[in-house]
């Protein structure tokens, strides 16, 4: 042995493994940038984590289910351990789902975790998306990531739909039938699409196998790519943060990835998984054995899709049955219009960030989150959209509402038809007023201090409430938000006295900008002068 190696410090095993990896993968460079990366802390930042973790849980449980599920529509006669269905004809897909539920130990649990996970995944994405929307986290530089997230939500919906259609039970078959009827309504090519989708007439013998490959390979593959891209961008942009002492647009304040964030986020994965497992232990979901196999001539009452498809169900239920027959052709507006409004509802919220940046013409980066009240028009728009969405959810469950609350289904349908147009407008107006009210309250708080609840009697008998001044940190937090000035059309003539042409698009933009940031759009935040004038005076009031 040469003395040179002996004098050299023998690196610990972990370091030697890391050295090996670094020599091939360059991990030290990567770790240097990210190991102590700062993550800000706020409860609302965990919503996206729930979505991510439930996605991982769905993949894990989904892989397990593929080991037992037979994506085949071959007809078999059931002779398994579930007595009530003995001797019943069913597809192999349905029979293998029964096998998973009754014969594979833990199979039912994994099925239920998979399905509960899917519901929670979609719900978490929805709420996460709303968090991003209402805090303005979608602004530059994060517009692309907003779209990635939106795509994940839409793809998640279709992955869910193709997934719950696989067991070929009576409920899911009914949903597929509805989809086929909707596809038929497409002008010119509807019947061709339907034939190609189902390999012939409905239901045929192909759709389970086709949905299976879409459900386990195509859509999740795309989604996995999008999730990775989404996370890379979160790392690259660094996380947004709320305004507060020490927090600026040029920094990010929080705790390091290693160890705090890793422990919290990693631990949170186990919390989410644990809760979903416990829910799956105690709450039955999609008991396909109770529904029976799909028969094209049978149906159960109260048929409902999973919740994320409910708004499309609402569209189809409340639409009047318009059909136009001309020159030997039928335009099935009663189905085709809902089919077109369905993506439109989603697109409206997806394109909003681009509308807003067009109105503000703000090309700067934004890393400080807005409090929803400080952007009343955006917040009102978001609430109007949610209202729209939930009105349609009510429509989708009109029979359930009718039977549970003893209401007339006719009345509910008409309510939804009218509320579809009216409710978002009301929600917009009400939300905007609430936001302005909250802004006024913040303004009062800054200028006059916090209401202490202590009543003081003055020597001459007057009662006053003592207001406690805010701390410098609170003062800063409540006044840190930006306030845009409404755009102006500009002078009617240019410097040469020639009439300036203003395009209608620009006029619209100015109008919108006035709506956003004019007198009715926001309450001017207190200025330092106002504050000093009030606080320097004698006696708080």
């Amino acid at each position, binding site marked *: 042995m040469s003395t040179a190696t002996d004098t050299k410090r023998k690196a610990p095993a972990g370091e030697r493994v890391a050295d090996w990896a670094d020599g091939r993968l360059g991990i030290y460079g990567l770790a240097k940038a990210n190991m102590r990366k700062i993550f800000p802390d706020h409860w609302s930042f965990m919503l996206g984590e729930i979505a991510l973790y439930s996605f991982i849980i769905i993949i894990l449980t989904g892989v397990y289910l593929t080991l037992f599920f037979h994506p085949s529509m071959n007809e078999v006669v059931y002779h398994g351990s579930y007595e009530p269905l003995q001797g019943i004809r069913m597809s192999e897909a349905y029979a293998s789902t029964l096998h998973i539920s009754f014969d594979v130990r833990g199979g039912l649990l994994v099925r239920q975790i998979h399905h509960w996970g899917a519901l929670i995944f979609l719900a978490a994405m929805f709420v996460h998306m709303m968090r991003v929307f209402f805090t303005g986290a979608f602004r530059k530089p994060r517009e692309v990531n907003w779209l990635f997230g939106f795509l994940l939500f839409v793809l998640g919906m279709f992955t869910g739909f193709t997934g719950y259609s696989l067991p070929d039970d009576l409920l899911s078959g009914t949903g597929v039938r509805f989809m086929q009827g909707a596809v038929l*309504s497409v002008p010119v090519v509807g019947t061709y699409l339907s034939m190609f989708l189902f390999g012939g007439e409905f239901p045929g013998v192909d759709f389970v196998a086709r949905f299976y490959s879409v459900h386990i390979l195509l859509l999740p593959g795309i989604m996995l790519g999008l999730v990775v891209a989404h996370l890379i961008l979160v790392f690259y942009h660094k996380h947004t943060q709320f305004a507060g*002492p020490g927090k600026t647009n040029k920094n990010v304040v929080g705790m390091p990835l290693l160890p*705090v964030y890793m*422990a919290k986020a990693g631990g949170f994965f186990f919390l989410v998984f644990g809760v979903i497992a416990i829910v799956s232990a105690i709450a039955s979901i999609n008991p396909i054995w109770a529904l029976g196999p799909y028969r094209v001539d049978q*149906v159960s009452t109260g048929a409902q899709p999973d919740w994320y498809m409910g708004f499309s169900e609402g569209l189809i239920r409340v639409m009047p049955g318009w059909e136009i027959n001309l020159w030997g052709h*039928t335009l*099935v507006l009663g189905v085709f219009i809902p089919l077109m409004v369905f993506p439109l509802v989603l697109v409206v919220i997806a394109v909003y960030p681009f509308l807003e940046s067009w109105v503000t013409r703000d090309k700067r980066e934004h890393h400080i989150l807005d409090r929803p009240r400080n952007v009343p028009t955006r917040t009102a728009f978001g609430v109007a959209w949610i209202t729209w969405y939930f009105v349609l959810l009510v429509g989708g469950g009109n029979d359930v509402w009718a039977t549970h609350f003893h209401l007339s289904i006719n009345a509910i349908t008409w309510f939804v038809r009218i509320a579809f147009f009216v409710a978002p407008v009301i929600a917009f107006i009400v939300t905007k007023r609430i936001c302005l009210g909250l802004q006024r309250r913040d303004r009062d708080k800054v200028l006059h201090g916090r209401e202490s609840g202590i009543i003081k009697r003055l020597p001459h008998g007057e009662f006053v409430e003592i207001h406690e001044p805010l701390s410098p940190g609170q003062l800063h937090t409540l006044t840190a938000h930006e306030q845009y000035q409404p755009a102006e059309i500009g002078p009617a003539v240019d410097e040469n006295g020639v009439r300036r042409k203003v395009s209608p698009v620009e006029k619209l933009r100015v109008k919108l900008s006035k709506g956003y940031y004019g007198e009715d759009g926001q309450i001017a935040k207190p200025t330092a002068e106002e504050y000093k004038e009030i606080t320097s005076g004698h006696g708080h009031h």
Partner: protein
Amino acid sequence: MSSQEIPEEILPVEQGTAHGAVTVADDPFADPGLPAHKPRVQDIDERAARRSERAVAFLFTLSMLATVAFIASYVVFPVDQIVYIWPFGHVSALNFSLGMTLGLALFFIGAGAVHWARTLMSDVETAAERHPIEAEPEVKAQVLADFAAGAAESGLGRRKLIRNTMFGALALVPLSGVVLLRDLGPLPEKKLRTTMWSRGKQLINMNTMEPLRPEDIVVGSLTFAMPEGLEEDAHDFQTQMGKAALMIVRIEPDDIKNKREREWAHEGIVAFSKICTHVGCPISLYEQQTHHVLCPCHQSTFDLSDGARVIFGPAGHPLPQLRIGVNDEGNLEALGDFEEPVGAAFWERG
């Protein structure tokens, strides 16, 4: 309109510059900077830290025990054992125990990790700088120059013939993939216009699988039927049923408001397609007094005493009626196929 004509936007002062970095001495709203770190009890009292350590270790130990319990449950409980557990009712013992133990095993790991992070790991907040996403102008200039150089070297702009043929080839090659999709299914042709029904086919009762006789059908009952010759084990049973399924009711002939309906009936027995004309659900709810049928999927309601006219809901046209009569054996039979396509409407329906 050029961009110069647009008045400059008046953008608000950027956050963090107004109050933060360049603090105006007498600005009451100035950023006071990060508040001083408040130590937790674990930071100053080693005994409290020890308590937290034990709590975390305890949670991890519970997780281990839960995993052992999971394996034990897997072995102990038979897959078909049903037990009563308040308040969940009768549940599968195996599913319940596996789910609870797995859930708790996972949950305790999470709870331990989070408790560890919250009580024992440093909670000092630090600030990291952000850097603009946009590249520096020099970088951008370099990239544009590199691209221009690369593009020039390729000669793509200069050699139009290569460019055009390449785009042509790239545009055409995906067509192969589209063509390959052709065999996904047959063309529609007349498939949606015809059903199995034809003149002389008897109506088979779905419950008894026997031919229906007029006397089987009483006022107020709803009977489902399929065509003679369709077997439940036939490979295309579902597909044929999806079009041929019938529902049959008896209405007093005088109560039938529609003249054609009365003519196509047999002594008040009328046969309508069971497949809803909205999006194709099978209709299954019948109100005896009014002769209304309701599709439970989207609540389209049809009046069977009036040509199955739509009286509520999203369906766009009446249910097709099948013309029926009685054959020599006294059984109900079809007198032809439906005269219009059954089920959901489509472009070629006309």
